[in-house]
C-alpha cells in the first residue's frame, strides 16, 4: 500500500510500454551545485511486451496491499494533449490510494520515447518517512474549472470521494 506506482502506458502500433517509478526507496544523489539528476529511466519495451520496473519495498501491511479485494479503479476521462491522449487512472482500496497511473495512447514516436524516459520524481526537503510514498494532493499552475477536470487532483478527489 505504501508504494506509489506512477505508470505511463504508451500504446500504439501494437507496442505497449509500461513505466513505473517509485517516489521512495530510490536514493537520489544530491549533485554539488544543485542540478537534480534524472535518475530513473523507463524500461523500454520491445515488440508488444510490457515491462515493469521493480517495486522494491514490501507493503508494511499486507492486508491493505493493492491486491486487496476491496480495491477499486477510477479512470478519468481521456484528454487530448499535445502528447496524445492522456487518461488518469487511480487504484484505491477502501482506505487509501494504492497507485496513480497515467494511461497514454499515442503514436510511438520520438515524443513518446521522451515521455517514457521521464525524470524521476525529486523528493524535496522536509523529513521523509521511509514508509510513506503516495501522493495526497498536487500543486500545479493555476487551473480553470475545465483544467481541473483533466487534472491529477481530480482523479485523487474521485478516489477519495466514495
Amino acid at each position, binding site marked *: 500500500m505504501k508504494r506509489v506506482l506512477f505508470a505511463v502506458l504508451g500504446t500504439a502500433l501494437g507496442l505497449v510500454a509500461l513505466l513505473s517509478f517509485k517516489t521512495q526507496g530510490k536514493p*537520489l544523489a544530491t549533485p554539488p551545485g544543485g542540478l*537534480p539528476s534524472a535518475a530513473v529511466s523507463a524500461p523500454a519495451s520491445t515488440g508488444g511486451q510490457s515491462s515493469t520496473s521493480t517495486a522494491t519495498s514490501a507493503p508494511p501491511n499486507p492486508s491493505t496491499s493493492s491486491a486487496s479485494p476491496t480495491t477499486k479503479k477510477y479512470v478519468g476521462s481521456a484528454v487530448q494533449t499535445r502528447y496524445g491522449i492522456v487518461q488518469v487512472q487511480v487504484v484505491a482500496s477502501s482506505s487509501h490510494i494504492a497507485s496513480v497511473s497515467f494511461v497514454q495512447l499515442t503514436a510511438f514516436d520520438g515524443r513518446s520515447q521522451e515521455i517514457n524516459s521521464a525524470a524521476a520524481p525529486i523528493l524535496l526537503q522536509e523529513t521523509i518517512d521511509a514508509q510513506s510514498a503516495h*501522493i495526497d494532493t498536487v*500543486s500545479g499552475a493555476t487551473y480553470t474549472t475545465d483544467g*481541473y477536470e483533466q487534472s491529477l487532483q481530480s482523479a485523487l478527489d474521485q478516489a477519495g470521494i466514495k
Partner: protein
Amino acid sequence: MRTASPTGLRRVEHCMGTVFSIDVRTPDADPAAIDEVVTWLHWVDRTFSTYRETSEISRLDRNAISLDDCSPDVVEVLRRCAELADDTEGYFDCHNDGRLDPSGYVKGWAIERASDLLTTAGAGDHCVNGGGDVQCAGAPAPDRSWHVGIAHPLRPATTIATVEGRDLAVATSGTAERGRHIVDPHTGERPDRFASITVVGRRIAGVDAYATAAFAMGERAPAWLTARGLSALLVRPDGSVLRTPSAGVVNSGS
C-alpha cells in the same frame, strides 16, 4: 459531494473560476467545519471578484466606494498586496490593465484562512488545494506526513517531484494552465524563461505571492529566491530542473 470515508471528509467546490479540494483527515471531524470553509470561499469570491460588478473590489476600483466603506478583510488584503509589492521589487502587483486586481493574492490568502478555519473547528489534520495552490496542516495519518506532488509543467497528469511535510504550503506558477496570465509588471511582457516555478513554505498566502513574483522576474528568479532563502523548484521550458539550495533533495529512508 461531501461524504464520510475511512480517510476522513472530502469536498470539491467550484469557486473563483477554479476548483477547491478540501481534504480533512482528523478522525470524527465535524462536517460543519467544511461547510464553514465553503461559505467562506464563496464570500471571498463575492467580495473580491473583478468579474462581479457588485464586489467591493469592483466598486472600489470605480470609486463607487472608498476604502473606509470596505470590509476589514479587503483592507487587510490590499495592505498585504502593498507590502508584497515592496517585498518583491514590484514584481507582485495587484493591478491588471490599470485596474485594481488583487486576485493574485486573494486565492492563496483564502486558502490560508480556510485552513485556519478548519484548525479552529477542531479539524487540524487537513489539506486545502485551490487550483493547484496547497496548504496542508497537521498530518494525513498518524504515521506519516503530507505528500504533495508537483505537476510536471510539460507533461500533463504527471508529477516531476514530491514535497513532504506536515504544516506545508506549496504554490506553483507557470504557463501550463490557463486561468492566470502572469505579466512582468515592469515590461508588460509574459515571462518565458521558466515553464513553472514552485515555492514551498509554511503559509500559502505569502508562498503563492512569491511564486507569482518569481515567475514574473524571469531569469532573475533563481537568484532572488535563493537570496530570500526560499525553497523552490524551477522547471525550464526544455524540461530541465533547477532548485534553490534550501530545496534539498532528500534520500528517502535515510
